[in-house]
C-alpha cells in the first residue's frame, strides 16, 4: 500500500534514463493498482502517526472504501494512460520538435504523472484535513506542469497558470475551513470531526469553504472555465486529469467530508443547485463544440455536475450513486479521451467536422470507444446503465421534480455522446487516416471492455461503490444495482431518456442556434471573462502604482520622516498627557551649559545657510566642538575629550574627501529651487517637531538613575582597580560594547579600503 506513495520517487530514478521511464512508470502504476486491489480485498488498513504534534497534525491515512475506489481509479486508469503514453508521447514530442526545433526528452512527463498518481492516492487515503490539503496542492502542482507540458506554447502556459490559480487559490479555502473546524474542535481528523460536530452555522461555514475548494477542482460552475482550457495538455494528461485525477479529486474531497456536509441542509441544497447548473452549462456547451477534446471537456463538467447533484440529493442513494457514477464515468471518459488522441494521431485533425467515417478504417477503436460511449450514454448492457439507474433512484427518493431534472440531464448526456461518437466514426469518410500503433488502441479496448463487463457483472463495481458510499454516508449502504425487467420508475425514466435523446439528436438544426448563442453568452459574460478581466486589471493597476512609486516616491527620504512623525503624533494623541511635560528650571550654574547648547544650535543652523563646502565643514566642526563643550558642562570630561578628538579627525577626513572631488561636481545639486526649500523645510520641521516631542516627553520624566545601574557601577569601580568610572565601564563592565564599537571602526576602515582601495589594507 505504501508502495503507492513511493511511486514518484521510483519514477524519478527511472526517468534518469529516458528510454526506461515509460516501462518503469507503467510497471509501477500496474503494481500499485494490484496492491491497492489486494489491500482493499483484504479489508484495508490504516496508518496513523504523529506528523507535527505541535500543531496536532497527523499523518493519518486509511484504505477505506472511498480511498480504495479513487486509488484504484488513479492507479488503474493511470496504468492504461501510461501504457498509452509510452507510444503517444514520443509521437507528440516528435510533432513538437518539428514545430519548434527543440528536442525534449519528456521525462518530466513521467515524473509528474507519477507524482500526480501518488498524490491522488495519498489524497484518497488521507484522513486528516491538513494532510488532505497537502496532497490536494500536490495534485495541483503536478497538473500545472502537465497542462503546461508544451512549455513553448503560450496557450499551454496560460492554461496551466489558469488551472493553478483557480484550483490553488480555492484550495486555501479548504485550509481555512479546516482551521475553522480546528479552532472549534481542536482536531483536523475527519473521523473525529464527524463525531464531534453538531449541525449549525459553523459546520455550514467551514464545510462550505471546503466544498467550494472541491467544486473548483471539479470544475463546477462558476469555476468551470479552467477545464476546457486545460485541454492544451497532451491527450493522455487530459484523459487522466478528467477521469481519475484532478477533477475527480474535487468530488473525492466532497465525498470525504460528506459526513460533515450532510449535517447542513443549506450546503446540500447549494450542491444541488450547483450540480444542476453545471450539468446544464456543461451539457449545452458540449453540444455546440466542434473540437473533440473541447466537447469531452464540457461533458466532464456536466458529468461531475451529476455527481455533485447526487451528493446534493443526499441520503443513502445519493452517496452510493455518486461513487458509482464516478467509476462508470472514469472508465468511459478516459477511453473516449484516449480515442480522441488516437484519432488525432491518425488523421492530424482535432475537429469533428473534419473527420468522419473512421469506423471502417479503425474498427477495433470504433468498437471499443463505442462501448465507452454507450457507457457514458447509459445504454443497457454497459456499466453506465446502472449509473443512471442509481441517479434516478436517488432523485426519486427526493421527489418527482428532481426525477424530471435527472431525466433532462441524462438526455443531454446521450445527445452529446452520440454527437461525439457518430461524428468521428460514422458518416462518410473524410480526410486520410494513418495506421495507429497498437499501444494507442489497446488501452481503449481494455477500458471499453471493462465498461461492458460492468454492464453484465456489476457486483464488483457496486461493492466498491457501496464501500465508498458507506464512507461518505457514514453508515452502511444497502443499494444493489441490477437489471429489473419491469416497468419500474427507473426503467421508465431510462426509456424516456432514450426516446427524448433520439428526438434531441434528430432535431439538432432547430436548437443548435440557441445553444450556440448560450455558449457565446457564456464567453462574453461568463466567469472566464471575469477572470481575464481581473488579471488584466490587476496588472494594469500594478503598473499604475508602480509608476507612481518610481516617479514620486523612490529616493524620497521624506517618505520616512513624515510617517514617523505621524506615528509619534498618534502615540501622543492616544495617551493621556496631563502633567507629562515639565519646563525644568535654569539655575545660575546652568548658564555655561545653556551658552554651549545655544552655540551648538546656532552653528547647526548656520550649516543650512552655508553655501561653500569647505566652509560648511568648518561650521560643522564648530557645531561639533560646541556640543563637546556642552558635554564637558554635563560633567563628562571623557566624552568631551573623545568628542573633540573625533571631531578633529572627522573634519580632516571630510576635507580630505572634498579634495578628491572637483569643485564643480562638488557643488552639483547644491542649490535647490525655492519651492523645494519650502517643501523640504516643512518636512524638516515635522521631523524636528517629532524629535522635540519625543525628547521633551521623555526628558520631563524624573530620571530613574537613582537606584539604577549607574549608581552601582560607580560603587563597584574601585573593585575593578580604577578611579575613572567611565573608563572602567568602557574597559570592564561594558567592555563588550567597547569591543563592538571598535569593531565597527575597524570595519569602516576595511569598508573604505574596499570602496576606494580595492580592499587592500593601507
Amino acid at each position, binding site marked *: 500500500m505504501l508502495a503507492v506513495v513511493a511511486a514518484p520517487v521510483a519514477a524519478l530514478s527511472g526517468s534518469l534514463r529516458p528510454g526506461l521511464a515509460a516501462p518503469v512508470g507503467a510497471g509501477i502504476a500496474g503494481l500499485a493498482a494490484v496492491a491497492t486491489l489486494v489491500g482493499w480485498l483484504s479489508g484495508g488498513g490504516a496508518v496513523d502517526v504523529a*506528523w*507535527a504534534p*505541535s500543531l496536532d*497534525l497527523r499523518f493519518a491515512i486509511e484504505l477505506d472504501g472511498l480511498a480504495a475506489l479513487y486509488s484504484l481509479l488513479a492507479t488503474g486508469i493511470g496504468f492504461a494512460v501510461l501504457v498509452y503514453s509510452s507510444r503517444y508521447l514520443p509521437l507528440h514530442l516528435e510533432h513538437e520538435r518539428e514545430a519548434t526545433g*527543440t528536442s*525534449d526528452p519528456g521525462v518530466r512527463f513521467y515524473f509528474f504523472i507519477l507524482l500526480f498518481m501518488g498524490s491522488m492516492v495519498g489524497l484518497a487515503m488521507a484522513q486528516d484535513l491538513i494532510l488532505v*490539503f*497537502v496532497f490536494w496542492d500536490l495534485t495541483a502542482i503536478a497538473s500545472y506542469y502537465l497542462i503546461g507540458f508544451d*512549455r*513553448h506554447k503560450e496557450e499551454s502556459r496560460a492554461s496551466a*497558470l489558469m488551472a493553478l*490559480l483557480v484550483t*490553488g*487559490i480555492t484550495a*486555501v*479555502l479548504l*485550509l*481555512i475551513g479546516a482551521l475553522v473546524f480546528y*479552532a472549534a474542535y481542536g482536531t483536523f481528523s475527519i473521523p473525529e470531526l464527524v463525531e464531534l460536530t453538531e449541525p449549525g452555522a459553523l459546520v455550514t461555514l467551514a464545510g462550505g469553504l471546503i466544498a467550494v475548494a472541491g467544486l473548483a477542482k471539479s470544475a463546477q460552475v462558476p469555476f468551470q472555465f479552467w477545464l476546457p482550457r486545460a485541454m492544451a495538455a497532451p491527450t493522455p494528461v487530459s484523459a487522466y486529469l478528467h477521469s481519475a485525477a484532478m477533477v475527480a479529486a474535487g468530488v473525492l474531497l466532497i465525498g470525504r467530508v460528506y459526513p460533515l456536509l450532510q449535517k447542513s441542509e443549506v450546503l446540500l441544497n447549494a450542491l444541488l443547485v450547483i450540480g444542476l447548473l453545471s450539468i446544464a452549462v456543461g451539457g449545452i456547451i458540449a453540444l455546440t463544440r466542434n473540437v473533440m477534446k473541447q466537447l469531452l471537456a464540457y461533458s466532464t463538467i456536466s458529468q461531475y455536475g451529476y455527481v455533485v447533484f447526487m451528493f446534493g440529493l443526499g441520503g443513502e442513494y445519493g452517496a452510493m450513486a455518486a461513487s458509482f457514477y464516478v467509476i462508470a464515468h472514469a472508465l468511459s471518459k478516459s477511453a473516449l479521451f484516449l480515442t480522441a488522441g488516437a484519432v488525432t494521431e491518425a488523421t492530424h485533425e482535432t475537429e469533428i467536422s473534419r473527420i468522419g467515417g473512421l469506423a471502417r478504417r479503425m474498427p477495433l477503436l470504433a468498437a471499443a470507444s463505442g462501448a465507452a460511449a454507450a457507457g457514458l450514454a447509459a445504454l443497457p448492457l454497459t456499466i453506465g446503465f446502472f449509473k443512471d439507474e442509481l441517479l434516478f433512484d436517488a432523485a426519486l427518493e427526493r421527489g418527482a421534480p428532481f426525477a424530471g431534472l435527472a431525466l433532462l440531464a441524462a438526455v443531454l448526456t446521450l445527445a452529446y455522446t452520440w454527437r461525439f461518437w457518430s461524428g468521428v466514426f460514422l458518416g462518410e469518410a473524410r480526410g486520410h487516416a494513418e495506421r495507429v500503433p497498437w499501444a494507442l488502441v489497446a488501452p481503449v479496448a481494455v477500458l471499453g471492455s471493462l465498461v461492458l463487463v460492468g454492464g453484465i457483472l456489476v457486483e464488483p463495481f457496486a461493492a466498491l461503490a457501496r464501500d465508498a458510499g458507506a464512507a461518505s454516508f457514514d453508515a452502511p449502504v444497502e443499494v444493489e444495482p441490477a437489471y429489473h425487467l419491469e416497468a419500474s420508475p427507473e426503467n421508465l425514466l431510462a426509456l424516456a431518456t432514450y426516446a427524448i435523446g433520439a428526438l434531441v439528436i434528430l432535431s439538432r438544426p432547430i436548437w443548435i442556434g440557441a445553444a450556440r448563442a448560450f455558449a457565446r453568452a457564456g464567453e462574453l459574460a461568463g466567469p472566464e471573462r471575469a477572470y481575464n478581466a481581473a488579471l488584466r486589471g*490587476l496588472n494594469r493597476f500594478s503598473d499604475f*502604482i508602480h509608476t507612481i512609486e518610481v516617479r514620486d*516616491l*523612490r*529616493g*524620497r*527620504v521624506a517618505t*520616512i*520622516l513624515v*510617517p*514617523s512623525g505621524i*506615528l509619534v503624533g*498618534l*502615540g501622543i494623541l*492616544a*495617551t*493621556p498627557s496631563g502633567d*507629562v511635560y515639565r519646563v525644568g528650571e535654569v539655575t545660575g550654574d546652568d548658564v555655561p551649559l545653556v551658552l554651549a547648547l545655544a552655540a551648538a544650535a546656532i552653528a547647526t543652523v548656520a550649516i543650512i545657510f552655508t553655501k561653500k563646502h569647505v566652509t560648511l565643514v568648518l561650521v560643522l566642526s564648530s557645531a561639533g566642538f560646541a556640543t563637546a563643550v556642552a558635554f564637558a558642562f554635563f560633567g563628562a570630561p571623557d566624552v568631551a575629550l573623545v568628542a573633540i578628538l573625533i571631531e578633529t579627525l572627522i573634519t580632516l577626513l571630510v576635507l580630505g574627501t572634498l579634495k578628491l572631488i572637483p569643485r564643480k561636481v562638488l557643488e552639483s545639486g547644491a542649490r535647490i529651487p525655492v519651492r523645494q526649500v519650502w517643501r523640504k523645510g516643512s518636512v524638516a520641521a515635522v521631523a524636528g517637531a517629532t524629535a522635540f516631542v*519625543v525628547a521633551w*516627553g*521623555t526628558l*520631563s*520624566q524624573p*530620571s*530613574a538613575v537613582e537606584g*539604577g*545601574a*549607574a549608581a*552601582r557601577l560607580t560603587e563597584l569601580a574601585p573593585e575593578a582597580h580604577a578611579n575613572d568610572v567611565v573608563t572602567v565601564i568602557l574597559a570592564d563592565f*561594558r*567592555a*563588550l*560594547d567597547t569591543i*563592538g564599537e571598535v569593531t*565597527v571602526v*575597524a*570595519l569602516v576602515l*576595511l*569598508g573604505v579600503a574596499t570602496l576606494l582601495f580595492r*580592499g*587592500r589594507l593601507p
Partner: protein
Amino acid sequence: MTLLSLPIGITWVLGTVLAMLDGRRPLVGWLSVAGLGASFVSVIVLSVTVVQNGPLEMVAGGWPEGVGIQLRADVLGVTFALVSSAVIFFALVYEVMGGVRSRTFPAFVLFVNTGLMGIFLTGDIFNFYVFFEISMVAAYVLTGYRERDYQVRAAFIFAIVNLIGSVIFLVAVGGLYHLTGSLDMQIVAERITQAELAPTVSIAAAILVAFGLKLGLFPFHYWLPAVYVGSHASVVAILSGALANIGGYGLLRFGGDILPEVLALGAPVIIILGTASIIYGALQAVSRRSPAEVMAYSAIGQVGYILIALGIGGPIGFAAAVLYAVVNSLNKLLLFLAIGLRGPLVGVAFAIGAFSVAGVPPAPGFLGKLALFRTGLEMESLANSIALVTLIFLGGALSFLYSFQVYQRVYMKPDQTPPAPPMQTDPFSAGGPNKPSPLAVRGMVVVLAALVVAVGVWPEPLLVLSDGAAAVLAGGAGGAP
C-alpha cells in the same frame, strides 16, 4: 558559558583574521565557510540546550546582573540566530563556489553573522544597538559588492536609510534608559511599567519606525526595491534572509517582551500597517517583470504578515510571527540565490521558492499561511476575524499570482533553449550573459531547495521553536525566568 559565547565569538575572531587576508583566494573563502559552519553548529547545539534546559545566561566580566552586559539565549533568540546563521552560511557557500570577487567579502559576511548573533543573544538594549551597528556597517559595504553603478547606488540608499533607522533606535535606547535607569532588558521590562504612558508610547513609536525601516514595511519601504534588485544575489539573500530578521526579532523582543502593554495599545496601528504592507507589496509585485523585482516587492508584502501576527499577539499570534519570519527568511534565501543563476535546474529551485511564497505544500510557506489563518481566527470579534482572514486570503491569492506570472515568464521555457538571463546579476563565468552558471552552484541551490522542502515536510522542530519563542514572549514582562 562558553557555549553562549561561541556563536558570537567564532566568526568574530575568524573575521578579524580574514580581514587581513585576500578573500578572493579559494582557501580563504573555504576557511570562512568552515568558520560559519562551525558557528552554525554551535548555534544548533545552543538551541538544543536552550529548548531542553531553558534559557542560558551569562554576565560578561563575571559581574552581577545589571552591572555587566548580560548575554542571554532564550528560544526566541536562538530561533532567529539559527535561521539567520543558516541563511548566511548558504549565501556564503554560494558565493565562494562561484568565486569571490572582492578581497573583503568573506570577512564582511562573517561580521554580519557576528553582529546578528550578538543581537539575538544579548540581553542588554545598548549592546543590542552596538551589535546592530556591526552587522549594518558590514552590510552597507556588502550591498555595494561588485561595485556596478546600480550596486553602489543601492549601497548608498541602503546606508542612508538605515542610518536614519539606527539613530532613531539609538534615541529609543536612550529614552528607555532614562525612564528605567537600566539597560538590562529584563530590568527595563519590569520598570517601564511604572513610567508614564505617554513618553513610553513615543519611544515605542520610535522603535516601530526603526525596525519597520529594517523590515521594509510600508510606508518605510522605499529603499527596498532598489537595493534588492540592484545588489548581488548572495548579498540580497543575506539582506533579505538574515538582516531583515533584525526587524522581526526587534519588534518581537521590544514589543512582545519589553513593552507588552504598549504593544497591546498599538496593536491596531500595527495591524493596519501590516495590512497596508501586504496589499501594497502584493499589488506592486503583480506586474513586475524581473524575478528580483517581484520578490523585492513581495518582501514588502510578506513583512506585513509578520506585523499582523505580532499585532494580534498571544501565544498563537507570536508563534505565527516567529514561524512566518523563519519561513520567509528561507524563501527569500532560496529565491534570491536562484534568481542570481541561469541554466537548467535553476527553475526547479525558483519554483519551490515560489510555491513556498504562495503557501503551497509541501514547501514550508504553507505552514506560515496556516499559522496566520489560525491567528486570524483568534481575533476577539467575529467581524475582525472575517476581515483579517479575507485579507490574508487575498494577499495569498495575489502572491500566488505574482509568483507564478513571473515564474512562467522567466523559467517555464523549454529546457534546451537558453533561458532569458534573469534580470539581476552578472554571470559567474566570463562566458557571456547566457552561459549557464557552474553546475556545482546550481546543484547547491537545488540541494538548498530540497532542504527547504524538508522543513515543510517535517516541520516539527520549527514548530517547537516557534512555540517556545512565543512562550518566552507570552510569559509577560521580563520574558522567561
